[in-house]
Protein backbone atom coordinates (compact mmCIF):
# COMPACT_ATOMS: atom_id res chain seq x y z
CA UNK A 1 0.00 0.00 0.00
CA UNK A 2 1.24 3.48 -0.86
CA UNK A 3 2.60 5.73 1.83
CA UNK A 4 3.28 9.46 1.80
CA UNK A 5 6.64 11.01 2.73
CA UNK A 6 7.23 14.74 2.88
CA UNK A 7 10.64 16.43 2.66
CA UNK A 8 10.16 20.03 3.65
CA UNK A 9 12.02 22.18 2.99
CA UNK A 10 14.32 20.81 0.33
CA UNK A 11 17.92 21.91 0.79
CA UNK A 12 21.04 23.09 -1.01
CA UNK A 13 19.29 25.14 -3.63
CA UNK A 14 17.87 28.62 -3.79
CA UNK A 15 14.48 29.35 -2.28
CA UNK A 16 11.77 27.44 -0.49
CA UNK A 17 10.28 24.29 -1.95
CA UNK A 18 9.19 20.86 -0.77
CA UNK A 19 8.65 17.31 -1.94
CA UNK A 20 5.51 15.26 -1.35
CA UNK A 21 6.17 11.67 -2.39
CA UNK A 22 3.81 8.74 -2.70
CA UNK A 23 5.95 5.63 -2.28
CA UNK A 24 5.42 1.86 -2.41
CA UNK A 25 6.37 -0.66 0.29
CA UNK A 26 9.96 -0.72 -0.95
CA UNK A 27 10.19 3.09 -0.70
CA UNK A 28 10.14 3.60 -4.48
CA UNK A 29 8.39 6.76 -5.63
CA UNK A 30 5.11 6.06 -7.45
CA UNK A 31 4.24 9.69 -7.80
CA UNK A 32 6.21 12.73 -6.73
CA UNK A 33 5.20 16.34 -6.42
CA UNK A 34 7.88 18.97 -6.14
CA UNK A 35 6.40 22.36 -5.44
CA UNK A 36 7.27 25.91 -4.57
CA UNK A 37 6.05 27.08 -1.19
CA UNK A 38 7.12 30.67 -1.79
CA UNK A 39 4.06 32.88 -2.15
CA UNK A 40 3.62 34.35 -5.62
CA UNK A 41 4.27 38.05 -5.48
CA UNK A 42 2.56 39.45 -8.51
CA UNK A 43 5.38 41.41 -10.12
CA UNK A 44 3.19 41.51 -13.20
CA UNK A 45 0.62 43.73 -11.49
CA UNK A 46 3.26 45.94 -9.96
CA UNK A 47 4.80 46.57 -13.38
CA UNK A 48 1.69 48.04 -14.92
CA UNK A 49 2.04 51.73 -15.72
CA UNK A 50 5.67 51.86 -14.60
CA UNK A 51 8.22 53.06 -17.13
CA UNK A 52 9.91 50.56 -19.41
CA UNK A 53 13.22 51.43 -17.73
CA UNK A 54 11.97 50.75 -14.23
CA UNK A 55 10.35 47.38 -14.79
CA UNK A 56 13.52 45.37 -15.58
CA UNK A 57 15.05 46.80 -12.40
CA UNK A 58 12.03 45.66 -10.42
CA UNK A 59 12.30 42.25 -12.10
CA UNK A 60 15.94 41.96 -11.06
CA UNK A 61 14.88 42.23 -7.42
CA UNK A 62 12.56 39.24 -7.34
CA UNK A 63 15.46 36.84 -6.97
CA UNK A 64 18.77 36.92 -5.18
CA UNK A 65 20.62 34.69 -7.57
CA UNK A 66 19.27 35.56 -11.03
CA UNK A 67 19.36 39.38 -11.17
CA UNK A 68 21.39 39.34 -14.38
CA UNK A 69 19.04 37.00 -16.27
CA UNK A 70 15.97 38.92 -15.12
CA UNK A 71 17.51 42.28 -15.97
CA UNK A 72 18.45 41.16 -19.48
CA UNK A 73 15.19 39.31 -20.18
CA UNK A 74 13.18 42.24 -18.80
CA UNK A 75 15.02 44.82 -20.89
CA UNK A 76 14.88 42.73 -24.05
CA UNK A 77 11.16 42.08 -23.69
CA UNK A 78 10.70 45.88 -23.58
CA UNK A 79 12.95 46.25 -26.64
CA UNK A 80 10.89 43.51 -28.30
CA UNK A 81 7.70 45.44 -27.67
CA UNK A 82 9.00 48.84 -28.83
CA UNK A 83 10.82 47.16 -31.75
CA UNK A 84 14.21 48.56 -30.80
CA UNK A 85 17.30 46.99 -32.33
CA UNK A 86 20.32 47.65 -30.15
CA UNK A 87 23.85 48.34 -31.46
CA UNK A 88 26.07 45.34 -31.99
CA UNK A 89 28.60 46.36 -29.34
CA UNK A 90 25.88 46.69 -26.72
CA UNK A 91 24.73 43.17 -27.55
CA UNK A 92 28.30 41.88 -27.22
CA UNK A 93 28.62 43.39 -23.74
CA UNK A 94 25.36 41.72 -22.76
CA UNK A 95 26.70 38.39 -24.01
CA UNK A 96 29.82 38.89 -21.86
CA UNK A 97 27.61 39.65 -18.85
CA UNK A 98 25.44 36.62 -19.54
CA UNK A 99 28.45 34.29 -19.79
CA UNK A 100 30.06 35.72 -16.66
CA UNK A 101 26.85 35.03 -14.78
CA UNK A 102 26.70 31.49 -16.09
CA UNK A 103 30.31 30.81 -15.14
CA UNK A 104 29.66 31.95 -11.57
CA UNK A 105 26.45 29.99 -11.37
CA UNK A 106 27.93 26.68 -12.52
CA UNK A 107 30.75 27.02 -10.01
CA UNK A 108 28.32 27.83 -7.20
CA UNK A 109 26.20 24.83 -8.15
CA UNK A 110 29.30 22.62 -7.97
CA UNK A 111 29.57 23.48 -4.27
CA UNK A 112 25.88 22.80 -3.69
CA UNK A 113 25.93 19.34 -5.29
CA UNK A 114 29.38 18.03 -4.33
CA UNK A 115 28.18 16.77 -0.92
CA UNK A 116 25.99 14.25 -2.85
CA UNK A 117 29.05 12.82 -4.62
CA UNK A 118 31.94 10.56 -3.62
CA UNK A 119 35.68 10.97 -4.01
CA UNK A 120 36.29 8.47 -6.84
CA UNK A 121 37.54 5.10 -5.64
CA UNK A 122 36.38 5.69 -2.06
CA UNK A 123 33.22 5.57 0.02
CA UNK A 124 33.89 9.08 1.27
CA UNK A 125 31.46 11.81 0.33
CA UNK A 126 32.87 15.15 -0.71
CA UNK A 127 32.80 17.99 1.80
CA UNK A 128 33.64 21.09 -0.22
CA UNK A 129 34.72 22.97 2.91
CA UNK A 130 37.26 20.45 4.17
CA UNK A 131 40.86 21.68 4.49
CA UNK A 132 42.05 18.23 3.29
CA UNK A 133 43.37 17.57 -0.20
CA UNK A 134 42.34 16.79 -2.90
CA UNK A 135 39.10 18.64 -2.16
CA UNK A 136 40.85 21.75 -0.87
CA UNK A 137 42.37 22.63 -4.24
CA UNK A 138 39.06 21.91 -5.98
CA UNK A 139 37.30 24.32 -3.62
CA UNK A 140 39.97 26.96 -4.27
CA UNK A 141 39.52 26.51 -8.01
CA UNK A 142 35.76 26.86 -7.67
CA UNK A 143 36.22 30.05 -5.66
CA UNK A 144 38.56 31.47 -8.28
CA UNK A 145 36.09 30.66 -11.05
CA UNK A 146 33.36 32.42 -9.11
CA UNK A 147 35.60 35.43 -8.56
CA UNK A 148 36.40 35.57 -12.24
CA UNK A 149 32.70 35.38 -13.17
CA UNK A 150 31.80 38.04 -10.65
CA UNK A 151 34.62 40.41 -11.62
CA UNK A 152 33.85 40.20 -15.34
CA UNK A 153 30.15 40.59 -14.58
CA UNK A 154 30.84 43.68 -12.52
CA UNK A 155 32.95 45.27 -15.26
CA UNK A 156 30.46 44.57 -18.06
CA UNK A 157 27.35 45.02 -15.93
CA UNK A 158 28.41 48.08 -13.95
CA UNK A 159 27.66 46.66 -10.51
CA UNK A 160 28.47 43.49 -8.62
CA UNK A 161 25.00 42.12 -7.90
CA UNK A 162 22.26 44.09 -9.67
CA UNK A 163 23.70 45.15 -13.04
CA UNK A 164 23.19 48.86 -13.66
CA UNK A 165 24.79 49.14 -17.10
CA UNK A 166 22.17 47.42 -19.31
CA UNK A 167 19.23 49.63 -20.25
CA UNK A 168 16.42 49.69 -22.75
CA UNK A 169 18.11 50.54 -26.05
CA UNK A 170 21.53 49.08 -25.23
CA UNK A 171 23.98 49.90 -22.45
CA UNK A 172 24.63 53.09 -20.50
CA UNK A 173 28.38 52.93 -20.96
CA UNK A 174 30.84 51.25 -23.30
CA UNK A 175 33.78 49.40 -21.79
CA UNK A 176 37.19 50.99 -22.24
CA UNK A 177 40.00 49.08 -24.02
CA UNK A 178 41.63 48.70 -20.60
CA UNK A 179 38.48 47.13 -19.15
CA UNK A 180 38.23 44.82 -22.16
CA UNK A 181 41.84 43.70 -21.68
CA UNK A 182 41.15 42.99 -18.03
CA UNK A 183 38.07 40.93 -18.87
CA UNK A 184 39.99 39.12 -21.59
CA UNK A 185 42.85 38.23 -19.23
CA UNK A 186 40.42 36.97 -16.63
CA UNK A 187 38.50 34.93 -19.20
CA UNK A 188 41.71 33.28 -20.37
CA UNK A 189 42.71 32.44 -16.82
CA UNK A 190 39.17 31.14 -16.27
CA UNK A 191 39.30 28.96 -19.36
CA UNK A 192 42.25 26.94 -18.04
CA UNK A 193 40.58 26.51 -14.64
CA UNK A 194 37.23 25.71 -16.25
CA UNK A 195 38.80 22.89 -18.27
CA UNK A 196 40.34 21.45 -15.10
CA UNK A 197 37.15 21.85 -13.10
CA UNK A 198 35.03 20.34 -15.86
CA UNK A 199 37.33 17.31 -16.04
CA UNK A 200 37.18 16.90 -12.28
CA UNK A 201 33.39 17.12 -12.17
CA UNK A 202 32.97 14.74 -15.10
CA UNK A 203 35.18 12.20 -13.32
CA UNK A 204 33.16 12.57 -10.12
CA UNK A 205 29.84 12.24 -11.98
CA UNK A 206 31.08 9.26 -13.97
CA UNK A 207 32.18 7.56 -10.75
CA UNK A 208 28.75 8.20 -9.22
CA UNK A 209 26.97 6.68 -12.22
CA UNK A 210 28.87 3.45 -11.67
CA UNK A 211 27.92 3.19 -8.02
CA UNK A 212 25.10 0.89 -6.96
CA UNK A 213 24.25 2.76 -3.77
CA UNK A 214 24.64 6.01 -1.96
CA UNK A 215 24.55 6.71 1.73
CA UNK A 216 21.65 8.83 2.99
CA UNK A 217 20.97 9.27 6.70
CA UNK A 218 23.28 6.37 7.60
CA UNK A 219 21.63 3.89 5.19
CA UNK A 220 22.75 2.49 1.86
CA UNK A 221 20.17 3.51 -0.72
CA UNK A 222 20.22 1.85 -4.17
CA UNK A 223 20.90 4.23 -7.05
CA UNK A 224 18.82 3.50 -10.16
CA UNK A 225 20.65 3.82 -13.49
CA UNK A 226 17.67 5.80 -14.79
CA UNK A 227 17.72 8.39 -12.00
CA UNK A 228 15.75 11.45 -13.02
CA UNK A 229 14.56 10.10 -16.40
CA UNK A 230 11.31 11.53 -17.74
CA UNK A 231 9.35 11.49 -20.97
CA UNK A 232 8.78 15.23 -21.27
CA UNK A 233 10.34 17.36 -23.98
CA UNK A 234 12.93 20.09 -23.68
CA UNK A 235 12.72 23.81 -24.34
CA UNK A 236 15.62 26.13 -25.11
CA UNK A 237 15.66 29.37 -27.06
CA UNK A 238 19.38 29.77 -27.76
CA UNK A 239 22.57 27.77 -27.11
CA UNK A 240 24.16 30.55 -25.00
CA UNK A 241 22.36 33.83 -24.91
CA UNK A 242 18.75 34.61 -25.78
CA UNK A 243 16.14 34.98 -28.44
CA UNK A 244 13.40 37.55 -28.86
CA UNK A 245 10.55 38.42 -31.17
CA UNK A 246 12.97 40.69 -33.05
CA UNK A 247 15.01 37.69 -34.27
CA UNK A 248 14.65 36.52 -37.83
CA UNK A 249 14.13 32.98 -36.58
CA UNK A 250 12.80 33.29 -33.04
CA UNK A 251 13.80 30.47 -30.69
CA UNK A 252 10.59 30.60 -28.71
CA UNK A 253 6.92 30.99 -29.60
CA UNK A 254 4.34 32.61 -27.30
CA UNK A 255 1.58 30.80 -29.21
CA UNK A 256 2.86 27.47 -27.95
CA UNK A 257 2.75 28.50 -24.28
CA UNK A 258 -0.24 27.86 -22.01
CA UNK A 259 -0.66 27.87 -18.25
CA UNK A 260 -2.65 25.57 -15.99
CA UNK A 261 -3.45 26.02 -12.34
CA UNK A 262 -1.60 24.04 -9.66
CA UNK A 263 -4.73 22.16 -8.69
CA UNK A 264 -4.97 20.72 -12.18
CA UNK A 265 -1.54 19.27 -11.79
CA UNK A 266 -0.62 18.38 -8.21
CA UNK A 267 -1.91 15.74 -5.78
CA UNK A 268 -4.80 16.54 -3.46
CA UNK A 269 -5.13 16.34 0.29
CA UNK A 270 -3.26 13.63 2.16
CA UNK A 271 -1.43 12.79 5.33
CA UNK A 272 2.17 11.81 5.91
CA UNK A 273 2.26 8.10 6.74
CA UNK A 274 6.02 7.43 6.55
CA UNK A 275 8.66 9.41 8.40
CA UNK A 276 12.41 9.05 8.82
CA UNK A 277 13.98 11.14 11.58
CA UNK A 278 17.47 10.17 10.41
CA UNK A 279 17.02 11.83 7.01
CA UNK A 280 19.32 14.86 6.67
CA UNK A 281 18.79 17.69 7.74
CA UNK A 282 16.46 17.19 10.71
CA UNK A 283 14.41 14.30 9.31
CA UNK A 284 11.31 14.19 7.14
CA UNK A 285 7.95 15.56 8.27
CA UNK A 286 6.38 13.55 11.13
CA UNK A 287 3.61 11.02 10.54
CA UNK A 288 0.22 12.71 10.60
CA UNK A 289 1.37 15.97 8.97
CA UNK A 290 -1.33 17.15 6.58
CA UNK A 291 -0.23 17.72 3.00
CA UNK A 292 -2.13 19.32 0.17
CA UNK A 293 0.12 20.08 -2.82
CA UNK A 294 -2.83 21.35 -4.90
CA UNK A 295 -3.43 24.14 -2.45
CA UNK A 296 0.13 24.69 -1.26
CA UNK A 297 1.83 25.04 -4.64
CA UNK A 298 2.57 28.69 -5.20
CA UNK A 299 3.20 28.76 -8.92
CA UNK A 300 1.11 28.10 -11.98
CA UNK A 301 2.18 25.27 -14.28
CA UNK A 302 3.41 26.55 -17.64
CA UNK A 303 3.13 24.18 -20.59
CA UNK A 304 4.76 24.30 -24.01
CA UNK A 305 2.78 22.54 -26.72
CA UNK A 306 0.41 21.43 -23.97
CA UNK A 307 2.99 19.59 -21.88
CA UNK A 308 5.57 20.36 -19.22
CA UNK A 309 9.12 20.70 -20.50
CA UNK A 310 12.63 20.62 -19.11
CA UNK A 311 14.72 23.76 -19.34
CA UNK A 312 18.40 24.23 -18.46
CA UNK A 313 21.81 23.09 -19.66
CA UNK A 314 20.68 19.63 -20.75
CA UNK A 315 17.76 21.14 -22.68
CA UNK A 316 20.14 23.55 -24.46
CA UNK A 317 22.56 20.80 -25.37
CA UNK A 318 19.80 18.42 -26.54
CA UNK A 319 18.24 21.08 -28.71
CA UNK A 320 21.37 22.61 -30.18
CA UNK A 321 24.14 20.02 -29.89
CA UNK A 322 22.52 16.59 -30.24
CA UNK A 323 23.33 15.76 -26.63
CA UNK A 324 21.81 12.39 -25.78
CA UNK A 325 22.43 11.85 -22.07
CA UNK A 326 19.30 11.72 -19.94
CA UNK A 327 18.23 12.16 -16.36
CA UNK A 328 20.08 13.62 -13.40
CA UNK A 329 23.55 12.57 -14.55
CA UNK A 330 22.83 13.95 -18.02
CA UNK A 331 21.89 17.29 -16.46
CA UNK A 332 25.05 17.39 -14.37
CA UNK A 333 27.24 16.48 -17.34
CA UNK A 334 25.59 19.10 -19.55
CA UNK A 335 26.14 21.79 -16.93
CA UNK A 336 29.86 21.02 -16.72
CA UNK A 337 30.15 21.16 -20.51
CA UNK A 338 28.78 24.70 -20.33
CA UNK A 339 31.80 25.80 -18.27
CA UNK A 340 34.02 26.04 -21.31
CA UNK A 341 31.16 26.99 -23.67
CA UNK A 342 30.46 30.10 -21.62
CA UNK A 343 34.13 31.11 -21.56
CA UNK A 344 34.64 30.56 -25.29
CA UNK A 345 31.49 32.58 -26.02
CA UNK A 346 32.76 35.33 -23.72
CA UNK A 347 36.19 35.40 -25.34
CA UNK A 348 34.65 35.50 -28.81
CA UNK A 349 32.38 38.38 -27.81
CA UNK A 350 35.33 40.30 -26.37
CA UNK A 351 37.31 39.67 -29.56
CA UNK A 352 34.51 41.14 -31.64
CA UNK A 353 33.77 44.03 -29.29
CA UNK A 354 34.81 47.52 -30.42
CA UNK A 355 35.32 49.85 -27.43
CA UNK A 356 34.69 52.92 -29.59
CA UNK A 357 31.45 51.53 -30.98
CA UNK A 358 28.00 52.85 -30.18
CA UNK A 359 26.21 51.12 -27.32
CA UNK A 360 22.89 52.95 -27.31
CA UNK A 361 20.20 52.97 -29.97
CA UNK A 362 19.13 56.38 -31.18
CA UNK A 363 16.27 57.09 -31.26
CA UNK A 364 14.61 54.74 -28.79
CA UNK A 365 10.98 54.14 -29.82
CA UNK A 366 8.41 54.51 -27.04
CA UNK A 367 6.15 51.65 -28.11
CA UNK A 368 2.64 51.23 -29.48
CA UNK A 369 1.45 48.47 -27.15
CA UNK A 370 2.60 45.52 -29.32
CA UNK A 371 3.61 42.30 -27.61
CA UNK A 372 7.33 41.73 -27.19
CA UNK A 373 9.09 38.84 -25.55
CA UNK A 374 12.61 37.75 -24.71
CA UNK A 375 13.71 34.25 -23.79
CA UNK A 376 17.01 34.50 -21.94
CA UNK A 377 18.94 31.30 -21.40
CA UNK A 378 19.64 31.79 -17.70
CA UNK A 379 22.04 29.34 -16.03
CA UNK A 380 19.12 27.22 -14.81
CA UNK A 381 17.08 27.47 -18.00
CA UNK A 382 14.94 29.53 -20.29
CA UNK A 383 13.72 32.71 -18.58
CA UNK A 384 10.92 34.20 -20.66
CA UNK A 385 9.65 37.73 -20.10
CA UNK A 386 6.74 39.17 -22.10
CA UNK A 387 5.80 42.84 -22.27
CA UNK A 388 3.60 45.39 -23.95
CA UNK A 389 4.86 48.96 -23.88
CA UNK A 390 2.96 52.02 -25.04
CA UNK A 391 4.36 55.56 -24.89
CA UNK A 392 7.18 54.36 -22.66
CA UNK A 393 4.83 52.83 -20.07
CA UNK A 394 4.29 49.13 -19.43
CA UNK A 395 0.76 47.89 -20.13
CA UNK A 396 1.44 44.18 -19.63
CA UNK A 397 4.28 42.19 -18.15
CA UNK A 398 4.79 38.51 -17.45
CA UNK A 399 7.76 36.49 -16.21
CA UNK A 400 8.01 32.74 -16.90
CA UNK A 401 11.05 31.86 -14.83
CA UNK A 402 13.13 28.72 -15.43
CA UNK A 403 12.31 26.71 -12.33
CA UNK A 404 8.58 27.24 -12.87
CA UNK A 405 8.98 25.33 -16.13
CA UNK A 406 10.96 22.62 -14.35
CA UNK A 407 8.65 21.98 -11.36
CA UNK A 408 6.15 19.71 -13.15
CA UNK A 409 8.82 18.04 -15.29
CA UNK A 410 11.02 17.23 -12.32
CA UNK A 411 7.95 15.96 -10.44
CA UNK A 412 7.49 13.34 -13.17
CA UNK A 413 11.20 12.55 -13.16
CA UNK A 414 11.00 11.42 -9.54
CA UNK A 415 8.98 8.29 -10.36
CA UNK A 416 10.95 5.07 -9.95
CA UNK A 417 13.62 6.43 -7.60
CA UNK A 418 13.97 5.56 -3.91
CA UNK A 419 12.47 8.52 -2.02
CA UNK A 420 15.75 9.15 -0.17
CA UNK A 421 17.43 10.28 -3.40
CA UNK A 422 14.57 12.52 -4.57
CA UNK A 423 16.49 15.63 -3.55
CA UNK A 424 19.38 14.57 -5.76
CA UNK A 425 16.97 14.64 -8.70
CA UNK A 426 15.76 18.10 -7.67
CA UNK A 427 19.34 19.41 -7.41
CA UNK A 428 20.06 18.27 -10.96
CA UNK A 429 17.86 21.16 -12.09
CA UNK A 430 19.88 23.72 -10.08
CA UNK A 431 16.54 25.12 -8.94
CA UNK A 432 16.05 28.71 -7.99
CA UNK A 433 12.78 29.14 -6.17
CA UNK A 434 12.75 32.83 -5.48
CA UNK A 435 12.58 33.33 -1.84
CA UNK A 436 10.61 35.37 0.67
CA UNK A 437 12.54 37.59 3.02
CA UNK A 438 13.00 36.75 6.66
CA UNK A 439 13.85 39.53 8.98
CA UNK A 440 16.55 39.47 11.63
CA UNK A 441 14.77 38.84 14.92
CA UNK A 442 16.67 39.78 18.01
CA UNK A 443 15.76 38.76 21.53
CA UNK A 444 17.41 41.24 23.86
CA UNK A 445 17.40 39.06 26.98
CA UNK A 446 18.98 36.02 25.49
CA UNK A 447 21.02 37.92 22.90
CA UNK A 448 19.84 35.49 20.32
CA UNK A 449 19.68 36.49 16.71
CA UNK A 450 17.75 34.96 13.90
CA UNK A 451 19.47 36.24 10.85
CA UNK A 452 17.40 37.12 7.91
CA UNK A 453 18.04 34.92 4.96
CA UNK A 454 18.99 37.27 2.25
CA UNK A 455 18.37 35.30 -0.84
Amino acid sequence: MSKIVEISPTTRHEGHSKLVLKVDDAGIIERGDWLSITPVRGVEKLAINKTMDQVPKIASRVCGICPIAHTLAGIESMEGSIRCEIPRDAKLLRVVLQCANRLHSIALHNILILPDFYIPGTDTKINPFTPEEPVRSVAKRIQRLREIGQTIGEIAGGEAVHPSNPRVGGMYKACTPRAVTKMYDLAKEGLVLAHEQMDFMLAVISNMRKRDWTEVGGKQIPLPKTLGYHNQGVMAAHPIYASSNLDENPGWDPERWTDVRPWDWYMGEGEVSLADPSYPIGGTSPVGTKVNPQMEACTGVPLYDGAPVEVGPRARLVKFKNFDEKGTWGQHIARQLEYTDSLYAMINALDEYNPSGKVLADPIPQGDGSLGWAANEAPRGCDVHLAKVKDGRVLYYEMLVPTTWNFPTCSRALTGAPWQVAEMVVRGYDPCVSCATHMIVIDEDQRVVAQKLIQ
Partner: protein
Amino acid sequence: MLFPETVVAGCGNPLFADDGFGPAVAEELARFELPDTIKVMDAGLGGPHFIFTLIDPEQTKRLIIIDIADFGGDPGEIRDFRVEDLPAGSYRDIHSWDLTEPLQRLKDTIDITVIGCQPERVTAPDFEMGLTEKVHNAVPRTVRHVLELLGVDYGMAIENLRNEGRQQETDRETCIGEG
Protein backbone atom coordinates in the same frame (compact mmCIF):
# COMPACT_ATOMS: atom_id res chain seq x y z
CA MET B 1 41.03 40.81 -6.28
CA LEU B 2 37.28 41.10 -6.20
CA PHE B 3 37.07 43.04 -2.94
CA PRO B 4 39.32 45.66 -1.36
CA GLU B 5 40.26 46.14 2.29
CA THR B 6 36.82 47.35 3.37
CA VAL B 7 33.48 46.16 2.05
CA VAL B 8 30.18 47.89 2.81
CA ALA B 9 27.13 45.88 1.77
CA GLY B 10 23.56 47.17 1.87
CA CYS B 11 21.31 44.11 2.07
CA GLY B 12 17.60 43.69 1.51
CA ASN B 13 14.83 43.90 -1.03
CA PRO B 14 13.45 47.30 -2.05
CA LEU B 15 10.27 45.55 -3.19
CA PHE B 16 9.22 44.91 0.42
CA ALA B 17 9.00 48.46 1.82
CA ASP B 18 11.48 48.91 4.71
CA ASP B 19 13.45 45.87 3.60
CA GLY B 20 14.95 48.26 1.04
CA PHE B 21 16.81 50.09 3.80
CA GLY B 22 20.22 48.48 3.14
CA PRO B 23 20.18 49.18 -0.63
CA ALA B 24 18.95 52.76 0.06
CA VAL B 25 21.91 53.42 2.37
CA ALA B 26 24.28 51.86 -0.18
CA GLU B 27 22.86 54.11 -2.88
CA GLU B 28 23.47 57.20 -0.74
CA LEU B 29 26.97 56.07 0.17
CA ALA B 30 27.77 55.51 -3.50
CA ARG B 31 27.47 59.27 -4.04
CA PHE B 32 30.55 59.91 -1.92
CA GLU B 33 34.05 59.81 -3.19
CA LEU B 34 35.53 57.23 -0.89
CA PRO B 35 39.08 55.90 -0.81
CA ASP B 36 39.89 53.06 -3.23
CA THR B 37 40.27 50.74 -0.28
CA ILE B 38 36.51 50.92 0.35
CA LYS B 39 33.87 49.33 -1.81
CA VAL B 40 30.19 50.04 -1.26
CA MET B 41 27.69 47.63 -2.76
CA ASP B 42 23.95 47.35 -3.16
CA ALA B 43 23.92 43.66 -2.29
CA GLY B 44 20.16 43.39 -2.73
CA LEU B 45 19.25 39.80 -2.01
CA GLY B 46 22.55 38.43 -3.25
CA GLY B 47 24.84 39.12 -0.26
CA PRO B 48 25.56 35.51 0.65
CA HIS B 49 26.31 34.17 -2.86
CA PHE B 50 27.84 37.18 -4.45
CA ILE B 51 29.71 38.79 -1.58
CA PHE B 52 30.07 36.99 1.74
CA THR B 53 31.15 33.64 0.37
CA LEU B 54 33.61 35.34 -1.98
CA ILE B 55 35.42 37.54 0.53
CA ASP B 56 39.08 36.69 0.86
CA PRO B 57 40.25 37.41 4.43
CA GLU B 58 43.79 37.93 3.18
CA GLN B 59 42.59 40.92 1.23
CA THR B 60 39.52 42.18 3.04
CA LYS B 61 39.89 43.21 6.67
CA ARG B 62 36.58 44.83 7.35
CA LEU B 63 32.94 44.18 6.43
CA ILE B 64 30.05 46.47 7.28
CA ILE B 65 26.59 45.09 6.61
CA ILE B 66 23.57 47.37 6.57
CA ASP B 67 20.22 45.71 6.99
CA ILE B 68 16.95 45.81 8.84
CA ALA B 69 16.67 44.07 12.21
CA ASP B 70 13.76 43.57 14.54
CA PHE B 71 15.31 44.20 17.95
CA GLY B 72 12.17 45.60 19.54
CA GLY B 73 13.26 49.23 19.07
CA ASP B 74 11.34 52.15 17.62
CA PRO B 75 11.02 52.19 13.84
CA GLY B 76 14.05 53.93 12.38
CA GLU B 77 16.25 53.17 15.40
CA ILE B 78 19.72 51.98 14.44
CA ARG B 79 21.89 49.60 16.36
CA ASP B 80 25.24 47.91 15.77
CA PHE B 81 25.60 44.18 16.12
CA ARG B 82 28.69 41.99 16.14
CA VAL B 83 28.80 38.52 14.68
CA GLU B 84 29.54 37.33 18.21
CA ASP B 85 25.86 38.09 18.85
CA LEU B 86 24.94 35.49 16.25
CA PRO B 87 25.64 32.05 17.75
CA ALA B 88 27.15 29.66 15.23
CA GLY B 89 24.63 27.22 13.87
CA SER B 90 21.74 28.51 15.98
CA TYR B 91 20.01 29.95 12.98
CA ARG B 92 21.54 27.88 10.29
CA ASP B 93 19.68 28.19 7.07
CA ILE B 94 18.86 24.78 5.76
CA HIS B 95 17.60 26.06 2.45
CA SER B 96 20.79 27.25 0.92
CA TRP B 97 23.66 29.60 1.51
CA ASP B 98 22.76 31.82 4.37
CA LEU B 99 24.14 34.94 5.93
CA THR B 100 25.07 33.56 9.32
CA GLU B 101 27.28 30.73 8.20
CA PRO B 102 29.70 32.64 5.97
CA LEU B 103 29.88 35.36 8.60
CA GLN B 104 30.68 32.84 11.29
CA ARG B 105 33.45 31.55 9.08
CA LEU B 106 34.83 35.04 8.51
CA LYS B 107 34.41 36.63 11.91
CA ASP B 108 37.72 35.54 13.40
CA THR B 109 39.76 36.84 10.52
CA ILE B 110 37.99 40.06 9.62
CA ASP B 111 36.17 42.78 11.51
CA ILE B 112 32.43 42.59 10.89
CA THR B 113 29.76 45.08 11.95
CA VAL B 114 26.08 44.60 11.21
CA ILE B 115 24.15 47.86 11.34
CA GLY B 116 20.51 47.01 11.89
CA CYS B 117 17.61 49.42 11.49
CA GLN B 118 14.30 48.67 13.18
CA PRO B 119 11.73 48.56 10.36
CA GLU B 120 8.17 49.78 10.60
CA ARG B 121 6.76 47.66 7.81
CA VAL B 122 8.05 44.71 5.80
CA THR B 123 5.41 43.66 3.34
CA ALA B 124 6.72 40.27 2.12
CA PRO B 125 5.31 38.45 0.26
CA ASP B 126 3.42 41.48 -1.05
CA PHE B 127 5.28 44.10 -2.99
CA GLU B 128 5.41 47.65 -1.78
CA MET B 129 8.06 50.02 -3.01
CA GLY B 130 9.53 52.80 -0.92
CA LEU B 131 10.62 53.09 2.71
CA THR B 132 8.30 54.27 5.47
CA GLU B 133 9.01 57.80 6.66
CA LYS B 134 10.77 56.84 9.88
CA VAL B 135 13.06 54.37 8.18
CA HIS B 136 13.64 56.77 5.30
CA ASN B 137 14.76 59.36 7.84
CA ALA B 138 17.22 56.88 9.28
CA VAL B 139 19.13 56.72 5.99
CA PRO B 140 21.23 59.91 6.44
CA ARG B 141 21.95 59.00 10.06
CA THR B 142 23.13 55.59 8.96
CA VAL B 143 25.26 57.10 6.21
CA ARG B 144 26.94 59.34 8.79
CA HIS B 145 27.40 56.38 11.10
CA VAL B 146 29.03 54.31 8.35
CA LEU B 147 31.32 57.20 7.44
CA GLU B 148 32.31 57.50 11.10
CA LEU B 149 33.07 53.81 11.25
CA LEU B 150 35.14 54.18 8.10
CA GLY B 151 36.95 57.21 9.53
CA VAL B 152 35.83 59.39 6.62
CA ASP B 153 34.79 62.90 7.64
CA TYR B 154 32.37 64.60 5.30
CA GLY B 155 30.95 66.86 8.01
CA MET B 156 28.06 69.02 6.90
CA ALA B 157 28.61 68.17 3.26
CA ILE B 158 26.34 65.13 3.44
CA GLU B 159 23.03 66.94 2.99
CA ASN B 160 24.46 69.07 0.20
CA LEU B 161 25.85 66.07 -1.60
CA ARG B 162 22.52 64.34 -1.37
CA ASN B 163 20.79 67.31 -2.93
CA GLU B 164 23.38 67.60 -5.69
CA GLY B 165 23.23 63.87 -6.23
CA ARG B 166 19.50 64.02 -6.74
CA GLN B 167 19.94 66.56 -9.49
CA GLN B 168 22.68 64.59 -11.21
CA GLU B 169 20.89 61.30 -11.15
CA THR B 170 18.25 62.19 -13.68
CA ASP B 171 19.85 60.06 -16.39
CA ARG B 172 19.56 56.85 -14.43
CA GLU B 173 16.39 55.28 -13.10
CA THR B 174 16.23 53.11 -10.06
CA CYS B 175 13.54 50.62 -9.34
CA ILE B 176 12.20 52.77 -6.52
CA GLY B 177 12.32 55.95 -8.55
CA GLU B 178 9.31 58.02 -9.42
CA GLY B 179 7.03 56.21 -11.74
